[in-house]
């Protein structure tokens, strides 16, 4: 038992962090966000690095690693707020891989793994999926509706503006398509877990920003981080970031190693991280004071991403209710 990344995972994390820090400097992210666009060059590089297929079996052109490795990337992508179709494409891969028939997987996964066939996933409510990331550029759109998943051809839908200008969303009308053979629930849980990890990265970054600022900024001749009003707030942020990280990695591990607990673990992670993501980023704004409320400071992009992520693939309230249902009168969970 070892609650820590192994050497390979640590190396993926370090490489990703370095790559992303170089490619997505804050000013570049701002430029992309203000233009509402992605950096296609960096996306190509990610494809060359094999990122889109990190969790896809080698037989389908992927790297044959697991959800933990995917989540490592998601955390790092969240940390720099990468404007990129990585998440939407991975989401499609996760659903097809877990719910597709052998033939469907063989047909679609290689393109998703290489990035040549971009996918995305939308959640239908009523007669439309109101918020589908990258539906305007994806060639393959998986529509989730209750316990059915349908694949339709993209691009589709109408661009919509959301709080988060670092990600592109469209509204897509529900329509007929090719049904996936299996249960889409495990795929949806993996998506929720991946978002939880992204939220960990987003929150961690804004915690770091708050701590740095609290060390430098002086008021009444004292660094504000020496006031408990600020330092205790930062401690609370750490508590929530670490809690979200523990839950997100546990859910990823469950997806790979103990699929029977995935549903519960994923809902716990998404509920906790949705709340923590919003609270931590909002707290960081409070620590920054006025400057954090200006467009020219980067903080707001993180705050908005955190809020929007919290509403994707199930809100905290929905996941909390599911946790209550799934834990029911269950027995004490002891060490596995």
């Amino acid at each position, binding site marked *: 038992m070892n609650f820590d990344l192994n050497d390979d995972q640590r190396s993926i994390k370090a490489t990703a962090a370095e790559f992303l820090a170089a490619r997505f400097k804050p000013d570049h992210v701002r430029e992309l966000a203000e233009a509402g666009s992605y950096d296609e060059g960096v996306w190509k590089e990610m494809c060359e690095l094999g990122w889109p297929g990190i969790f896809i079996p080698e037989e389908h052109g992927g790297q044959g690693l697991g959800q933990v490795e995917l989540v490592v990337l998601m955390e790092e992508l969240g940390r720099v707020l990468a404007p990129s179709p990585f998440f939407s494409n991975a989401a499609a891969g996760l659903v097809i891989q877990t719910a597709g028939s052998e033939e469907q997987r063989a047909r679609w996964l290689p393109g998703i793994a290489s990035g040549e066939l971009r996918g995305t996933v939308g*959640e239908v*409510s009523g007669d439309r999926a*109101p*918020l589908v990331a990258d539906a305007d550029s994806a060639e393959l759109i998986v529509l989730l509706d209750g316990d059915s998943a349908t694949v339709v051809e993209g691009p589709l839908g109408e661009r*919509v*503006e*959301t*709080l*988060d200008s670092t990600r592109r*969303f469209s509204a897509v009308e529900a329509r007929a398509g090719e049904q996936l053979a299996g249960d889409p629930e495990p795929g949806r849980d993996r998506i929720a877990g991946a978002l939880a990890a992204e939220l960990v990265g987003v929150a961690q970054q804004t915690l770091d920003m708050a701590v740095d600022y609290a060390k430098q900024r002086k*008021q*009444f*001749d004292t660094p504000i981080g020496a*006031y408990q*009003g*600020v330092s205790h707030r930062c401690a609370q942020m750490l508590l929530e970031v670490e809690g979200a990280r523990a839950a997100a990695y546990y859910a990823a591990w469950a997806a790979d190693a103990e699929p029977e607990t995935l549903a519960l673990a994923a809902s716990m992670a998404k509920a906790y991280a949705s709340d923590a993501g919003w609270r931590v980023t*909002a707290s960081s*704004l*409070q620590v920054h*004071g*006025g*400057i*954090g*409320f*200006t*467009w*020219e400071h980067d*903080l*707001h992009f993180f*705050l*908005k991403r955190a*809020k*929007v992520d919290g*509403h*994707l693939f199930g*809100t905290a*309230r929905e996941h909390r209710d599911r946790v209550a249902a799934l834990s029911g009168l269950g027995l004490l969970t002891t060490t596995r």
Partner: protein
Amino acid sequence: MDLTLSPEEAAFREELRAWIEANSPGREPEGDEAAFEFRKRWQRELDAAGWAGISWPKEYGGRGASLIEQAIFNEEIVRSKAPPMANVLALAMGGPTVIAHGDEDQKERYLPPILSAEEIWCQGFSEPDSGSDLASLKTRAEKTDGGWSVTGQKVWTTFAHHAKWCMLVARTDRDVPKHKGLTYFLMDMEQDAVQVRPLVQITGESEFNELFIEDAYIPDENVVGGVGNGWMVAITTLMHERATLAFGLQVQVQIALLQLRELVIERGLENDPIVRQRIGQLTIEAEVLRLNAYRGLTQIMKTGVPGPEGSLGKWQWSEVNQSLTEAAMEIRGAEAPLLESDWAYRFLRARANSIEGGTTEILKNIVAERVLGLPRMGAK
């Protein structure tokens, strides 16, 4: 204890309601310039009918009415969806400061054009490096012939681009402890030495401005309250900000709460027990905010000056408004991220509530030290 309006107060409200109904200027036009002109015209009409300075003394052009009547006025303006007046900062803060600390010449010179909206005022207190710690401000005023030469930078200045006068606090003596070397000026904004740059907020809008001041000239007669007394004069301005503006804010919360209930019904969530708890709690907190605002007025009317209790109202308002806009996001569910709804804007805007006009941390300090009498931070 009597929470009913007195006959005079009731008569005031009836008269006001009738007047607003007869004179309501309709919808505000689009665009900042046009909207501001519209608000100026509206204020001129109000002033002409005697509604502009409700609680100002009659000798200075006001109505000489009580703070309760001022509060009734604020409530009715919001309730009737009439636009606010153009010169809010001067009416609520600048004018009362001149009345309290200005000399007779200043009162005569400045007060009438405030009421008529001929001269708009803005407030130059905050600086990039002295947010909560006002007394650490660095903008400096050097003595020159017959006046002062001012250089520095101000931030979070509402209406700066419309303003004729700026309530400016600057350092006039660097050799004394920091609270003591400050002076309160009225700075003419119509000079090249003062540059206004809009400050874009996280909402994408810009309500505020930065001021870049380089060798601006202020004549001696524009010092309010005497050289070196700037700290005390500024506190008067801030007290009025928390006491009076807070009143209008609670009315806005009541309106927002009505809209939130409409949203709940529209979404068919009126029987959702969790939503009901949320709305119930917000209703209670908004009501407590309203009641405390009235209690605050009662106190001010008794003691004559706004006290540190005003900080409680500002603090509580920020929490209620943040909580209310977050509730709206939860109620909108999966569609909450969409910018198409005004709630998304309000939700972002509310994040500043716990910072603007005194951060919650500073307000808690004030409450702890000045209301509860706890020792000052760092006391031994």
